């Protein structure tokens, strides 16, 4: 539930973020522009208006100059074509007037001081002629002055209605003669209409106003004034400039209409001023309208942005939501409903890919489930096999704790209270081997078996073999599998067998003792009572009895070894003396085969060993007896004793057939006899070397065959540790000594 909430809040965040990005992109520039404008105020607009005015007034001045020039040129052209013939002058003037409707009056003065004046009246053009009085000098009359000074006249005069007339006067010369003779002067009075001015002056915005003032500060043209009068506030050029800021400068001031205006003035060539005026309020209005436009644009952008972002979010988010829902279904292992995205874009591709993925996963899961059910079927079969196996099976982890245990294993430890799983192996199965606690080594991988493992169960004991299979360290949970194979019954059977051997041997011994006893009795009397032939027969019987006794002793020893009951009683034994004596005892038998049996010592002192005299006697009997038995008649047998500071070594060397290398190990195993014994037909049980090996090893010695040194024959040896009082005194059986025929208490006194 919490997750749903979280996911939807993520989604909200996405749309919110999209909207905010869009708004930022759209509105930010508007805000920036607005802020800049607000901070700058109307100043830039005013500046722009001022420079515009400057340009307008300057343009206006140049246009006025051009207009006046055109008037002069027109007048010159007309005058230059005049003929001075008296009958010609009046029609020429009339013609001039009618060709130029702006002309209100023309004054033509000839050198004879005759002034002809053409005026435009309601009844047409009238010509009047007069002669100037001689008293008039050029300073009083413009026409005369023109002739005197040969200058142009550009001025503004007023008609009766006080309307301004642009007055242009020029000198007239005879253009036909080469002397360029002065003929007179002509002055034209032009009344310029609003239409003319509008065509002369530059185009203006409705709120702008342009007017023209002459050098006498009289208005020459003003769009609002029908009757143009002198502007008193424009009394001088300076005053104009102070009002309008003058050439190149726009000034904010109060107009004649008491308005806040921006004004600029430019001077024409003839010294007139062209003034342009614009109310400041119109500039502010423009500013306000700009602001309004900006706000409108901003609002439009915001609205369109919101719409666009909603559209975008809808276009993006809805397929994303479909995808998300689909993925969520996939994550909940619901593969039934494919993801449905209708858009023809990457989302659709993504959804189709995801659908494919979902189908794959679904297929995979189905196959996994199928495999799983196969596995669990297999597992249950395996489990039932493991459960029904008679051998105990335990799985342990690396800490040697029980992870799993089968019923057979739990039956073995039915004296222990369950549960078993999780408990240390050594607690449930306190195994011992050779009387010591079994220390399972699982620090390797592979199989190791432990035989003769003992499990104490209260009063009783169970014997078993263990097979420990240590896993590769991939699976930490199961480090090793232990299989317990119960050996108790087998072992009991073995013991019964051994018991049988022991009892049989024992029961054989009593009659044998009786037989050998009586044979001995007879033997002692034989010399007196028996024939030589009978004595030989008796000797054979005695030898046979001895052989039987030795065989029975060997069988008993084997039984003891197998049961682990072999008893060794260490004494401080003079090995040199014992060996010498033993050799001596065998000499008679060797002599029968014409063999030379000798004893040698490589050292010049007696060697003492901590050993069991009876068993060492048996070993010597065995080795020397074998040598005699297997060495051909007439052979040589040497028994040598040698010793280092810590080891005594007895070697029985013969010059017989020798022992093949491959048989040397086998010779010391139970019931093995060298093949040669079969060939030579010598008899034997093959038990002697096995018993010898066992007893020598029990006494910390070694036994074996010396390596061939190319001399032929064989060399059997055994070693024993040399007697060390500090080590061995404690081992020697203190109060009992074993004699030739049994044990007797040691008598320290007497």
């Amino acid at each position, binding site marked *: 539930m919490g997750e749903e909430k979280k996911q939807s809040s993520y989604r909200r965040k996405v749309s919110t973020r999209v909207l905010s990005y869009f708004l930022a992109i759209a509105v930010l520039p508007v805000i920036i522009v607005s802020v800049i404008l607000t901070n700058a105020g109307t100043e830039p607009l005013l500046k722009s208006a001022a420079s515009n005015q400057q340009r307008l007034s300057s343009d206006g001045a140049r246009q006025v100059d051009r207009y006046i020039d055109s008037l002069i040129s027109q007048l010159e052209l007309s005058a230059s074509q005049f003929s001075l013939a008296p009958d010609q002058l009046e029609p020429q003037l009339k013609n001039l007037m009618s060709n130029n409707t702006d002309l209100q009056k023309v004054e033509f003065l000839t050198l004879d001081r005759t002034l002809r004046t053409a005026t435009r009246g309601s009844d047409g053009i009238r010509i009047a002629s007069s002669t100037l009085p001689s008293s008039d000098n050029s300073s009083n009359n413009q026409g005369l002055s023109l002739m005197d000074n040969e200058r142009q006249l550009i001025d503004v005069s007023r008609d009766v209605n006080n309307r301004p007339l642009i007055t242009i006067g020029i000198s007239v010369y005879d253009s036909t003669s080469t002397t360029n003779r002065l003929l007179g002067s002509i002055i034209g009075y032009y009344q310029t209409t609003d239409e003319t001015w509008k065509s002369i002056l530059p185009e203006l915005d409705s709120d702008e106003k342009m007017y023209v003032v002459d050098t006498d500060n009289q208005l020459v043209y003003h769009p609002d004034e029908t009757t143009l009068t002198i502007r008193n506030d424009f009394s001088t050029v300076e005053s104009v400039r102070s009002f309008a800021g003058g050439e190149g400068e726009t000034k904010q001031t109060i107009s004649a209409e008491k308005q806040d205006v921006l004004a600029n003035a430019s001077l024409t060539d003839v010294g007139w001023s062209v003034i342009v005026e614009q109310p400041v309020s119109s500039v502010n209005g423009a500013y306000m309208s700009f602001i309004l436009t900006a706000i409108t644009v901003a609002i439009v952008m915001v609205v369109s942005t919101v719409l666009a972002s909603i559209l975008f979010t809808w276009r993006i988010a809805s397929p994303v939501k479909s995808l998300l829902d689909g993925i969520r279904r996939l994550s909940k292992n619901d593969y039934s409903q494919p993801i449905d995205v209708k858009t023809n874009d990457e989302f659709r591709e993504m959804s189709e890919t995801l659908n494919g993925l979902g189908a794959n996963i679904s297929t995979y899961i189905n196959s996994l489930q199928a495999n799983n059910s196969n596995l669990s079927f297999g597992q249950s079969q395996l489990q039932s096999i493991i459960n029904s196996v008679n051998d105990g099976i335990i799985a342990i982890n690396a800490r040697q704790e029980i992870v799993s245990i089968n019923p057979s294993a739990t039956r073995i430890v039915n004296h222990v209270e369950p549960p078993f799983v999780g408990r240390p192996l050594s607690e449930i199965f306190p195994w011992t081997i050779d009387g010591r606690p079994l220390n399972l080594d699982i620090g390797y991988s592979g199989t190791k078996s432990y035989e003769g493992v003992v499990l104490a169960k209260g009063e009783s004991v169970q014997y078993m073999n263990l097979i420990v299979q240590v896993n590769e360290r991939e699976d930490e949970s199961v480090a090793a599998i232990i299989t317990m194979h119960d050996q108790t019954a087998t072992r009991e059977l073995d013991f019964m067998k051994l018991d049988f051997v022991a009892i049989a041997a024992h029961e054989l*011994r009593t009659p044998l003792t*009786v037989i050998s006893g009586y044979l*001995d009795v007879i033997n*002692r009397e034989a010399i007196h009572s028996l024939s030589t032939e009978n004595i030989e027969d008796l000797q054979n019987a005695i030898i046979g009895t001895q052989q039987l006794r030795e065989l029975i002793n060997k069988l008993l020893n084997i039984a003891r070894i197998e049961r682990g009951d072999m008893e060794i009683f260490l004494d401080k034994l003079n090995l040199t003396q014992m060996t010498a004596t033993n050799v001596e005892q065998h000499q008679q038998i060797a002599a029968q085969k014409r063999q030379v049996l000798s004893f040698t010592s490589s050292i010049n002192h007696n060697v003492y060993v901590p050993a069991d005299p009876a068993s060492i006697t048996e070993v010597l009997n065995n080795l020397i007896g074998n040598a005699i038995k297997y060495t051909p008649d007439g052979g040589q047998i040497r028994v040598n004793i040698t010793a280092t500071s810590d080891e005594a070594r007895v070697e029985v060397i013969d010059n017989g057939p020798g022992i093949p290398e491959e048989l040397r190990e086998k010779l010391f195993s139970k019931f093995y006899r060298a093949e040669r014994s079969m060939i030579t037909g010598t008899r034997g049980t093959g038990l002697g070397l096995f018993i010898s090996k066992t007893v020598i090893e029990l006494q910390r010695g070694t036994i074996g065959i010396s390596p061939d040194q190319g001399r032929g024959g064989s060399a059997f040896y055994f070693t024993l540790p040399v007697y060390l009082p500090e080590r061995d005194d404690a081992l020697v059986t203190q109060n009992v000594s074993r004699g030739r*025929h049994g*044990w007797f208490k040691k008598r320290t006194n007497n």
Partner: protein
Amino acid sequence: MDGSKNVLIIEDEPMLRDLYQKALRGAGYTVELAGNWAQAREKLVNFKPTYVLLDVMLPGETGLEVLQFLRNDASFSCTQANILVLTNLAQHSVADNAMDHGADGYIIKADILPADLPEILESIND
């Protein structure tokens, strides 16, 4: 010891008794024979043995029981006798057990010849 050579043989095997008797009498010993504890007790009424050869495997009271009677009951006059246990089992544990119960020695019957007995008896006091 008083130098007398009285031997009581307690052995259930008649032929062995016979053999041991022959060997010891030949060596100058006075020998009395018993096949079990009951017979031995009868003999002991009038016979003061210096040596007792005692089979551990006896019908009725076992050798070890007999050993204890002889050692501990002064009425049998055997507390100071040399008591040697006879057996064929040849196991030290049996010998140890016998020694613990007061035996002076232990003879493995199969390992000796009856003719060796006088020598063995003499060797005990060496």
